[in-house]
């Protein structure tokens, strides 16, 4: 009888340890590509501005696309957030990627004709399926 009581006490101590071993593990990660775009700098660029004006305001573009004689410059800042949780044999993971993106369109003379911007990088969040 004393032996059984001893075993029960031992198992009672072991169970929390085993539960800890099986407890959920998780990770959060965030990565960013390039600097965030400055809305004030973007607003300062108007049709008629030169390529030099754009460079001074926004710096070097992420990408330059040739459009015949015209061209377009892309400024981009991407934020990606990942979250994952593991419960024994069940894994949940979520990834969200949002971007600040600004396209500046130039004519054949290097003069700004159009500009389009979306600033959504700060909307990236950590989300798990089911939560």
């Amino acid at each position: 009888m004393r032996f059984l009581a001893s075993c029960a006490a031992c198992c009672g101590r072991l169970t929390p340890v085993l539960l800890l071993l099986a407890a959920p593990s998780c990770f959060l990660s965030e990565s960013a590509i390039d600097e965030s775009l400055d809305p004030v700098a973007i607003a300062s660029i108007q049709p008629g501005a030169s390529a030099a004006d754009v460079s001074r305001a926004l710096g070097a573009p992420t990408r330059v696309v040739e459009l015949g004689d015209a061209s377009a410059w892309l400024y981009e800042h991407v934020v990606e957030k990942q979250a994952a949780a593991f419960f024994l044999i069940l894994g949940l993971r979520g990834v969200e990627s949002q971007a600040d993106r600004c396209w500046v369109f130039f004519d054949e003379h290097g003069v700004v004709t159009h500009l389009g911007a979306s600033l959504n990088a700060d909307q990236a969040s950590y989300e798990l399926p089911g939560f």
Partner: protein
Amino acid sequence: MNCPVSRHVLRALGVALLALLGGCAGLEFGRAEIDLEPPPDQIASLRTGVDDLSSCLSSLGAPTLVQTDENGRDFILTWSWLSQSDWGFFFSLPLSDAFNASLNYADSSWRPQRLRLVFDPAWNLKGVLTESPRD
């Protein structure tokens, strides 16, 4: 008559077994959100021959991609976004030093949705194409 020790041992063994099983079998659920969908009402309001680059950029924001078409005459602006879930499971069984049996299934046919606007050289809208994951 129930033995309390047996119940505790069984519970502990069950938890330990599940913990060990996590390394060789699992069920996974995932979700991905990449970029935002342009406002559907703004997409629906686009009119070829009426809208131009300025109005499209104003209503839809910055595209994901800007390129010329295959003939090099027209311009194509693409907005792409993805909002999908997937699931899968895996099971693996080491048989020996040289062999390992495994089964892996994933329903992860993630495909972004796309909106493509085609512009003529004067930046007038001449085409609206949408592409959903089921296309």
